[in-house]
């Protein structure tokens, strides 16, 4: 029972090996994100989403644009070191106050590149509720909570 008081959740860590050099992998991940991101399913506006972009600099936005021109922020770049990696805050459909963090790194592995993703900071999902209340944006509901509900296989 005492453990339930703790809220620590380990980071999600993923990696993929791609057959190209780090510079190419970095460019493909960032400049070309609209060409591969599964935005119909993984976005705030879902089927209405037309494009996704990462602004290539510290302070740059990660955002989607819907068919009607509505932009929705997913996060902000806070470290940018091509081709080694970049880091961004992550809060699709949610106030920036309760963000998690996503870090990407690109390392040569022989002729290929190991792309590693670490998504951490889950504890923030339960904090700063006061600030989140000010500017809450219900989009997170669509992406995360509804699909999470599907994932759990429960209806409500």
């Amino acid at each position, binding site marked *: *029972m005492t*453990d*339930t*008081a*703790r*809220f620590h*959740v*380990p980071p*999600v860590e*993923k*990696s*993929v090996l*791609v*057959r*190209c050099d780090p510079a*190419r*992998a970095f460019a*493909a*991940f960032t400049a*070309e994100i609209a*060409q*591969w*991101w*599964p935005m119909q*399913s*993984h976005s705030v506006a879902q089927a209405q989403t037309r494009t996704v972009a990462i602004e290539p600099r510290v302070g740059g936005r990660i955002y989607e644009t819907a068919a009607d021109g509505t932009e929705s922020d997913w996060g902000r770049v806070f470290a940018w070191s091509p081709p080694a990696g970049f880091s961004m805050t992550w809060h699709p459909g949610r106030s920036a106050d*309760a963000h998690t963090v996503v870090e990407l790194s690109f390392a040569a592995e022989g002729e290929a590149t190991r*792309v590693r*993703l670490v*998504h951490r900071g*889950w*504890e923030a*999902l*339960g*904090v*700063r*509720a*006061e600030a*989140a*209340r000010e500017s*809450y944006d*219900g989009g*997170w*509901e669509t992406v*995360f*909570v*509804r*699909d*999470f*509900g599907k*994932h*759990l296989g*429960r*209806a*409500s």
Partner: protein
Amino acid sequence: MTALADPMRQEILEKLRAGPRAVGEIAAGMPISRPAVSQHLKVLKDCGLVAETRQGTRHYFAVAPEGIGELRAYLDSLWSDALAAFALHVEGKR
């Protein structure tokens, strides 16, 4: 299912991070009624983010780590999808 899509529920989860609480303790200092807090707790419980235990006649609520774990598992699968799509793109371009 809108478990985390409500700032009050986020605030309740935040209060529960400190340890199990009874409804009255959770409601204290919140701008909503105790029945409203109970309703939010029910939603959080239904989707597995909060667990309820009983001690005598008192009910206590606590964060359910497995619920948060499932949330994490959901995003884990999201990133798998995204990275697979990325690999296909970058290798298809060659």
